[in-house]
């Protein structure tokens, strides 16, 4: 009795309200996207909206169960649940059905069940348990490795299904590490590499190498003591470049500019190395190392893009960057998506009136591209609303996470936040053409039983932990 009152009083109703809004609005859009296939009855279970209705019902049941359970159970069983989930991910290779070239689903009876969706909350549980355990610190290499294993084991298993999209979500857990004190510099390094990656594709490589060298030079100027060292770099640097260039012309080797830049760069590095060692300046060595890593990265990006990524994956990235125009092929999805959203105008065409949706121009329009239906039927008002809802939800969750006394609860909360954030950014970003097409659903919105249940589980376990925050101290 007392406990129940506590729940009602302590649970965060704002979040529940936001959840309800998203689920209901999501359902309405799924209804609209699938209405022409059936007769329109809400409980038509052969249609997607009928099925989603069931899933929402089951989710409510799940919520009740979660709240009845003792909050300490989640942390207690964290590793066990995580282990079970890993077994599931392995089992799907043996017993799962192959759909579209990937073995990601179990088919039982008339239902399909996707373990990779459930892996997200359970990984968060395990990670939270690990990071909140006694004596754990992120400075310790062994602990770091353990965390890495927890995060990347499921990621790897999902990668080989293959399901590139879901795998990428696991990078979100790095954000959790960040919140718990992981080195800021590495985050910055990560972001820099991302920018470098994009630049590498957009701009010719030799220019990039030149740019890296120049930046390195500037850093030297800022951080080095003897100012004349700067000049001492610039002149030999230019000289070496000139020599190699002329050498190329004279010997008629016809090397590409790229190769010339590379050779010059290596030569310059040697020079700088010698100078730095002589000057005994560790800072310079660090900058040198940075430059070297950067160039290595550029080369490997090149290699990875051309040799490792599959054709259609390469295409997706090129299309996003605007480097290729492919309205019939890979760019088709995004093009159709933008058309659908763009045609909505300010207030949309009205509920059930989306022509692009109706005529099925947008592929995957109930799942990954559900946002298009919103855009087309509800216009800018609708899309902005959804964006704002998510922003408020995530922000609210941050607030909630921060008020936790228990490390476990807070870390788990950030797991939730990070995963939601990544899904939010990638899914909507993809539909409006800002990010390459990566197939992941929009939480609580997209059609899909596994997705709905897994995210609801994720969210409400956290809410449960939150409602018990005064009792939980660890």
């Amino acid at each position, binding site marked *: 009795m007392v406990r129940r009152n506590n729940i009602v009083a302590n649970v965060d109703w704002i979040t529940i309200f936001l959840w309800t809004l998203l689920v209901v609005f999501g359902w309405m859009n799924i209804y609209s996207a699938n209405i022409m296939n059936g007769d329109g009855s809400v409980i038509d279970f052969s249609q997607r909206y009928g099925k989603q209705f069931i899933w929402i019902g089951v989710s409510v049941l799940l919520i009740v169960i979660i709240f009845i359970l003792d909050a300490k159970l989640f942390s207690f069983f964290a590793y066990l649940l995580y282990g079970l989930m890993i077994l599931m991910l392995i089992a799907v290779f043996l017993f799962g059905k192959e759909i579209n070239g990937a073995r990601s689903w179990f088919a039982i009876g008339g239902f399909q069940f996707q373990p990779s969706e459930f892996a997200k909350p359970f990984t968060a549980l395990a990670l939270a348990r690990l990071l909140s355990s006694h004596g754990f610190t992120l400075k310790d290499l062994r602990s770091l490795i353990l965390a890495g294993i927890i995060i990347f084991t499921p990621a790897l298993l999902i990668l080989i299904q293959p399901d590139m999209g879901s795998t990428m979500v696991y990078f979100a857990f790095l954000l959790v590490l960040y919140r718990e004190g992981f080195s800021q510099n590495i985050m910055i390094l990560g972001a820099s590499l991302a920018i470098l990656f994009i630049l590498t594709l957009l701009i010719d490589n030799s220019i990039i190498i030149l740019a890296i060298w120049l930046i390195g030079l500037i850093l030297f100027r800022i951080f080095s003591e003897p100012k004349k060292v700067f000049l001492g770099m610039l002149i030999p640097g230019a000289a070496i470049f000139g020599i190699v260039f002329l050498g190329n012309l004279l010997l008629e080797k016809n090397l590409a500019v790229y190769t010339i830049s590379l050779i010059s760069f290596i030569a310059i590095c040697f020079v700088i190395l010698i100078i730095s060692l002589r000057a005994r300046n560790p800072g310079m060595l660090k900058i040198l190392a940075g430059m070297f890593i950067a160039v290595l990265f550029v080369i490997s990006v090149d290699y990875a893009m051309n040799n490792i990524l599959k054709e259609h994956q390469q295409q997706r990235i090129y299309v996003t960057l605007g480097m290729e125009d492919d309205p019939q092929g890979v760019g088709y999805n995004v093009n159709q998506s933008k058309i659908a959203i763009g*045609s909505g105008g300010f207030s949309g065409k009205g509920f059930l009136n989306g022509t692009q949706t109706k005529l099925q121009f947008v592929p995957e329009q109930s799942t990954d591209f559900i946002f298009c239906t919103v855009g087309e039927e509800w216009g800018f008002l609708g899309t902005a609303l959804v964006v704002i809802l998510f922003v408020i939800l995530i922000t609210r969750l941050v607030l909630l996470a921060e008020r936790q006394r228990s490390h476990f609860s807070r870390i788990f909360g950030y797991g939730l936040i990070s995963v939601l954030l990544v899904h939010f950014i990638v899914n909507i970003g993809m539909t409006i053409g800002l990010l390459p097409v990566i197939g992941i659903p929009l939480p609580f919105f997209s059609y899909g039983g596994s997705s709905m249940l897994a995210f609801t589980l994720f969210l409400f376990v956290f809410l449960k932990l939150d409602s018990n925050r005064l009792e939980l101290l660890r």
Partner: protein
Amino acid sequence: MNFYDNRRYVFIVFTILFGLVFIVRLFLLQVVDTSYKVSAENNSQSHVVMYPARGLIYDRNGELLVSNQAAYDIMVVPNNVRQFDTTEFCSILGITQEGLLERMNRAKDYSWRVRSVFMKQVSFDVAAVLQEKMFKYPGFSLQSRTLRKYSRPVASHILGYIGEVDKGILENNEYYAMGDYIGVIGIEKSYEEVLRGEKGLKIYLKDVHNRIIGSYEEGKYDRPVKVGKNMTISLDADLQEYGEQLMQKFVGSIVAIEPSSGEILSMVSSPTVDPNLLVGRNLGETIRRLSADTLNPLFNRALMAQYPPGSTFKTINALVGLQERVIRNQTSYYCDYGYYYRGIHVGCHSHKAPLDLIGGIQHSCNTYFCNVFRRIMENPAYANTEEAFNHWRNHIMSFGFGEKLGSDFTNELKGNIPTAAYYDRYYTSGHWNFLTIISMAIGQGELLITPLQMANMTATIANRGWYYIPHLATGIEGDMDIDTKYLEKNMTTIDSAYYSPIVEGMALAVNGGPGSTARIARIPDITVCGKTGTAQNPHGEDHSIFIAFAPKDDPKIALAVYVENEGFGGTWAAPIASLMIEKYLTDNIKRTWLEQYVRRGNTKKEQEETNE
């Protein structure tokens, strides 16, 4: 509580930042940029497949045998169907409301979004009326198809027919879509790729109201339609029609070949079907009915019926004997109503005796050939029966027996020439000899040959030692050629010189005095060479067989006739063959009495059957 508390702000800022970026982008996309609105309006593509006319088929004299007629299928995409006046629709199509519902459900079961056939082959009038009112029935469309039309009600086994593709073909071949037609059997199947041409594709842009605005990307993605290629086959339509008439009262087949080229002049399998019945909406029903017929009219006996060759095979054994030098022309044997050896008795009819080789063929003496067979199998040049048998078998195989000949039909059967290994398994090695298999001396036993192989054998004898693979296609329009294998001479392992006594014997069988088994086949002014055969049939009456070619020198036609369950070869097969030869060589039948005899058929048997 935690040193990194402030990092929460990073998260919040990050989130709000992305939210803002999205909102700005959305604003630009939805409110500021109006080009998407326009794109949405003109986004719809309509793929129209264009079906080419199927290639025509001509006979050797340039007569058009197979042509096309237009038919219309009504197609539907259930997803695009809206409310419409079903009463008017049903009345135009001539179906009931239930029929409409049933067809709609069938289409929905197949797919909501992929076009499927709603109603097959409606008449031109119905199609015309529907075409005008098509705007009233969204989701429905007309697809024109070509059906076949046969100028003569003959040669259904040769020409074959076309039918709808089934699931198996759809899965394995990307070219075909649901509702397409494909050759099922005969020439239509063997030369499907030649005859079908290539489907074309035109992509139109439609606006949101389903009106065509123009060509998508100026036709960049369109594919031009290629009409099917016409072809000529070696069939002689007159001869074919005549043959089918002659065989009307019989079950069996006729195969006629032009020996100098291997071209098939006629191929009759009786009972047969008017090919025009195998066209159109009721094809499925017709096939079902025909398949249930006990006489199996769809079964092409010329290619697929395997019979023992009977006495006609004596010619081959003779040739082998000569080649192996175990007999000569003068070799003669005495016959006293049969062959007797160690308790085995092979009966023979009454004739003058002794006979030499030519006589043996002329009078078709069983005893003679049992002796010949023994000589072959006990050839002192070889160590044992097995080795002799293998040599014998090699000769036999060189005539094209025991394997598919490789004609341009897809459903040839191989026949059967047993191997030594077969007998070894059955009787154990070393425990069988010529006596065990003596029935093969006179063309019985385990020997199985198809009428096509038989006709080919006849052509080989006519050519005195070689043949071209029998084939039908003689020319394809455009730059395609028929397979070069049809232009290669296949030599038998028997020297050409050894053929003359055989030919002589066959000539005498027809034109010789009393006792010649095939005198009924004689045509005045033409030297017909022939050989009768009577194949024993364990299931009933003997089969009547006759092979013949004419004229003896510079032969123009070689044929094999099989009449099931009709007793002696001379009774029915010989006259039929003879009439075919007369028709082909002189274009006129003078012996109308013979014709009537054949046409009347076996009245005694008919009477017996009606009396039962």
